């Protein structure tokens, strides 16, 4: 029932002040529009959370892998490898005597307590087995105590350097072997072929591939792999330059050696993994593209159902710009909520997680770059993503839009 019409008593005309007009729609309009259709809101927030999470994960993966490879090489170290096998230490063969010859022939190498920092090593990949568990591919390094002179990031967390019949394991080997951390505690055993080794110590080498390695006493590994050569000789420079080592390889071409700075070696390895990083991006972007198209479709539907309403606002005097800004606010609220959700999920499920790959293990971290990537994607989704549906909604001529169903 309609009430009685009151006598007209309008307040007088508004004093117009063009300079002070705001022309903006109230923010509450954008906020309430979000909750108009909870299903659509859930789709938009969920879709943007998925996109942001995937691209953050891809960034973290690539950053983690690049980070571990670049941190593993030192500019102070030079690796001597067999000529022709510079691409892979594991395939390299270096005469045993090269270690001693390099230590005496090259001047200006690092010295500690009278010992020259030169370490002949055997690097090998082979299946290892924890008793009661399946075999898994392990990264093996045959070393002497001099290896600690060249790999200066290595620190013993507990136990001691391995003697014959023992191994020292990196703190992330359990991830590489896919076992519980407790299975690789000091005093436990692991098998290589038919031989059993007792774990004598656990070491760390933060942010490097060494943390995923099992270090054997060098003679043990030589015997088990039936090698009479080394894989490489690592030299730590003091006053010597990398060029000095290269000159040594030329002077002693009978040893058939090639020299490469350790950081350059890992940079080359990083290039080798570039296709994997590209694949990670591609996969993340393909899934993200699907989610973006889904989100756009949702926005199209959400805005298309409001063409008449938005036209009404224009007829009242709101400019298309003001309405567009309100739509952006609405879209940003949804996508930034999704971004926040993605950040929380990433913080819980991504941050600190370790990922094994063929030559080591890297840690995923929510670094500033990863967080900025997530936020940027969220903002881009909320602004650029809204352009096509907003254009479609605001483009029709006003009389036509007012008549739309």
């Amino acid at each position, binding site marked *: *029932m*309609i*009430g*009685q*019409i*009151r*006598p*007209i*008593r*309008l*307040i*007088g*005309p*508004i004093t*117009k*002040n*063009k300079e*002070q*007009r*705001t*022309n*903006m*729609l*109230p923010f*509450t*309009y954008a906020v*309430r*529009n979000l909750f*108009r259709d909870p299903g659509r809101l859930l789709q938009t927030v969920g879709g943007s959370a998925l996109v942001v999470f995937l691209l953050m994960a891809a960034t973290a993966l690539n950053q983690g892998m690049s980070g571990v490879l670049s941190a593993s090489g030192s500019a102070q170290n030079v690796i001597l490898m067999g000529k022709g096998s510079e691409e892979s230490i594991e395939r390299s063969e270096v005469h045993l005597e090269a270690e001693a010859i390099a230590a005496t022939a090259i001047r200006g190498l690092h010295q500690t307590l009278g010992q020259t920092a030169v370490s002949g090593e055997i690097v090998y990949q082979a299946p290892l087995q924890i008793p009661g568990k399946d075999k898994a591919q392990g990264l093996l390094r045959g070393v002497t105590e001099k290896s600690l002179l060249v790999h200066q990031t290595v620190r013993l967390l507990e136990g001691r350097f391995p003697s014959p019949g023992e191994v020292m394991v990196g703190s992330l080997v359990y991830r590489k072997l896919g076992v519980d951390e407790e299975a690789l505690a000091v005093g436990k055993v692991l098998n290589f072929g038919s031989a059993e080794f007792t774990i004598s110590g656990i070491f760390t080498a933060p942010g490097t591939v060494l943390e995923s390695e099992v270090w054997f006493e060098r003679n043990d590994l030589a015997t088990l792999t039936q090698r009479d050569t080394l894989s490489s000789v690592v030299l730590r420079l003091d006053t010597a330059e990398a060029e000095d080592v290269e000159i040594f390889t030329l002077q002693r071409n009978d040893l058939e050696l090639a020299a490469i700075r350790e950081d350059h070696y890992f940079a080359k390895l990083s290039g080798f993994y570039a296709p994997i990083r590209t694949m990670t991006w591609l996969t993340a972007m393909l899934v993200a593209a699907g989610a973006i198209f889904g989100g756009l479709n949702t926005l199209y539907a959400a805005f298309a159902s409001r063409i*008449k*309403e938005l036209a*009404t*606002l*224009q*007829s*009242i*005097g*709101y*400019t298309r710009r003001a309405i567009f800004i309100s739509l952006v606010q609405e879209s940003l609220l949804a996508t930034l909520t999704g971004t926040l959700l993605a950040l929380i999920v990433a913080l819980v499920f991504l941050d600190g997680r370790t990922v094994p790959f063929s030559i080591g293990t890297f840690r995923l971290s929510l670094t500033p770059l990863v967080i900025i990537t997530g936020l940027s994607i969220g903002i881009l989704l909320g602004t650029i993503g809204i352009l096509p549906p907003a254009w479609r909604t605001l483009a029709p*001529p*006003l*009389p036509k839009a*007012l008549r739309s169903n």
Partner: protein
Amino acid sequence: MSDSAYIHIQSLTKSYHKGKTLITPLQDLSLDVPSGEFLALMGPSGSGKTTLLNLIAGIDSPTSGLLQVQGRDLGGLSRAKLTRWRSDHVGYIFQLYHLIPILTAYENVELPLLLQKLSKRERRQRILAALDLVGLADRATHRPTELSGGQEQRVAIARAIVHDPGLLVADEPTGDLDRESADSILGLLDSLANDHGKTIVMVTHDPKAASAAHRTLHLEKGQLISGS
């Protein structure tokens, strides 16, 4: 142009292309509407009534001819200027009310005032006065879905008059209402013209609604054919 004409239209033509066909909904139309007049436009579907109403309201732009409202040539205004002009001078009343469903009656009426530089207190005074005027002060916090059709249209009228425009345009404002509600709305429009000097142009199919106006004009094929 007569001295008292609030709306002055001379040789007004509107045409547009639909595919390859040129459509001319208004052809060489001339009309004067004095200030404070309540004018009804009638005619069959496709006669050009709504096109004329949209042109007068600054929703659309003419192809040729002169269209002046309060001495302002609307044909020469850009889209942005036309939008600003509407926000100051026009109140539009739609057949299906066109209220924003997520806003309360109060907030719907507030929309035109947000385009003006007014304090919250000034806005509140005007909104309550407009809602009081249409008899819905006690429904201020209700959303459109909580109101009847007649009440929704009265909120729409409150929204159209709250910023005190000189011109009200109404596109079949009673077309979706029962007789009682329609009469109430027509009485309200009559009051706005007679007591407050608003110039009202109303499109209607309903002869009873047209009889509430001061003058009725008939359109056919984009031209005025008679008046009463």
